[in-house]
């Protein structure tokens, strides 16, 4: 909308139909989704049966304690260094083995989806955990819309590369862009969501604005942030941490108290946010989502496929 008076309007500046339809539905009080990224806009969402009844961490805790190396390696860096980051406008390139490849505007992606609140346990590979009330929708919804071809077996994701807005990317900390991937059945699982907000706020920059993956039974680094590309492929995709250290970070990286990180135990975790006496609790298989996801790995040796 910033270009309204200068005559350089592109088709991408036209309000997508889904979005103005959404405005109507909002006016009608239908409680439909608002577009993330509009400053101060509250998001409405519907509750989900997939939510845990654990008490979520506070908004402040969730937004000041982040691993997002694009903005620096300290937990406070993403909140501190992300002011210049511009998550609006935003588009996601969807390509590979799909029927309708293309660059999809975020508003287009959000058009027609019902945003749900998903309160998930979040377990970091560093053995701390939080509970986060994400707002998002199932990745499967999007994949079904673009049409997954039968030969597709994996989904690859990429984070945006903007060193001018992301100071961490000016250093060779990781091989940018950050890359992640899922097997197709993992990607299609109803627990796997694309999140565009938390609490009733649009996704904060430090948490992966404007759209990020959340896979609650895997270590947090699998839940890639600020996604600009989704590729359907028939080969296991390259993933950032696995490339950096394949012995320590496997492709699957399911939360598993019995398979330790080579340098530290994964048997227990500290639930951060409780101050100095934050309790340490036993880590649960698949982060407590065993009933829902164990069947995905039937016949696999999880000590090998870690």
């Amino acid at each position, binding site marked *: 909308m910033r270009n309204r008076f200068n005559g350089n309007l592109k088709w991408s500046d036209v309000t997508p139909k889904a979005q103005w339809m959404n405005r109507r539905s909002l006016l009608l009080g239908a409680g439909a989704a608002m577009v993330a990224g509009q400053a101060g806009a509250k998001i409405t969402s519907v509750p989900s049966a997939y939510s845990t009844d654990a008490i979520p961490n506070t908004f402040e805790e969730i937004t000041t304690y982040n691993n997002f190396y694009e903005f620096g390696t300290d937990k406070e860096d993403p909140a501190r260094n992300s002011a210049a980051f511009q998550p609006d406008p935003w588009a996601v390139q969807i390509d590979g083995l799909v029927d309708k490849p293309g660059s999809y505007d975020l508003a287009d992606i959000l058009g027609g989806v019902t945003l749900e609140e998903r309160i998930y346990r979040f377990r970091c590979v560093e053995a*701390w955990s939080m509970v986060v009330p994400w707002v998002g929708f199932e990745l499967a919804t999007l994949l079904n819309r673009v049409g997954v071809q039968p030969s597709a077996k994996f989904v690859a994701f990429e984070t945006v590369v903007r060193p001018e807005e992301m100071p961490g990317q000016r250093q060779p900390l990781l091989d940018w862009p950050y890359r992640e991937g899922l097997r197709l059945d993992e990607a299609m699982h109803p627990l796997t969501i694309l999140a565009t907000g938390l609490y009733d706020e649009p996704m904060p920059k430090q948490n992966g604005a404007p759209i990020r993956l959340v896979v609650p039974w895997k270590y947090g680094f699998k839940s890639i942030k600020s996604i600009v590309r989704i590729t359907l492929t028939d080969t296991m995709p390259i993933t950032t941490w696995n490339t950096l250290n394949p012995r320590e970070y496997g492709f699957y990286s399911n939360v598993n108290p019995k398979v330790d990180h080579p340098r530290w135990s994964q048997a227990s975790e500290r639930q951060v946010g409780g101050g100095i006496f934050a309790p340490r609790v036993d880590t649960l298989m698949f982060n407590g989502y065993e009933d829902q996801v164990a069947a995905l790995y039937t016949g696999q040796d999880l000590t090998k496929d870690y």
Partner: protein
Amino acid sequence: MVQAINTTLRRVPPLAIYIAGVLPLAWLVWLLFSGALGVDPVKRIEHQLGEWALQLLVAGLAITPLRRFTGVNLIRYRRAIGLLAFFYVALHLGTWLVLDIQLRWAEIWADIVKRPYITVGFAGFVAMIPLAITSNNESVRRLGAKTWQNLHRLTYFAVLAGAVHYMWLVKAWPPEPIIYLILVIFLLATRLVPKKRA
């Protein structure tokens, strides 16, 4: 210049080092109670104590080469620096045991045995125990200067263990642990420079 520094230092008693050395701890406690340590104060405390311990160990290691190559003599403060380093290492370990791993002994022993960075860090701590115990004039007298000095060469191992412990625990390649490790290796290497015969 060197003369002036050494003359000035003559007026600073080692007690000043002990006092200055506990100020950071007081500051950390103050930060904790003012809520400035953020979402995970335990990690902040643990890492901060560890880093101060490593800095003190490096400082202690720098004293001999500093005197040898520049003439600045801080040897009078070395015991204070060493004991403060031990004090911070012990607090660092205590924080891990009590606040971080919360006295889950099965996991603690598993970590010490199986996790190389914890094994190395713990070995460094153990090596410092006899050094802390013998950091007094009485022990120097009883052991004899030569034996005492040989024993205290364990410091080399402890400092190296501390730097490796740090290097080994981080993810990716942040600069700080690399800098400490290079500094420690450099300071240890200065010991290998042959002494000119007078």
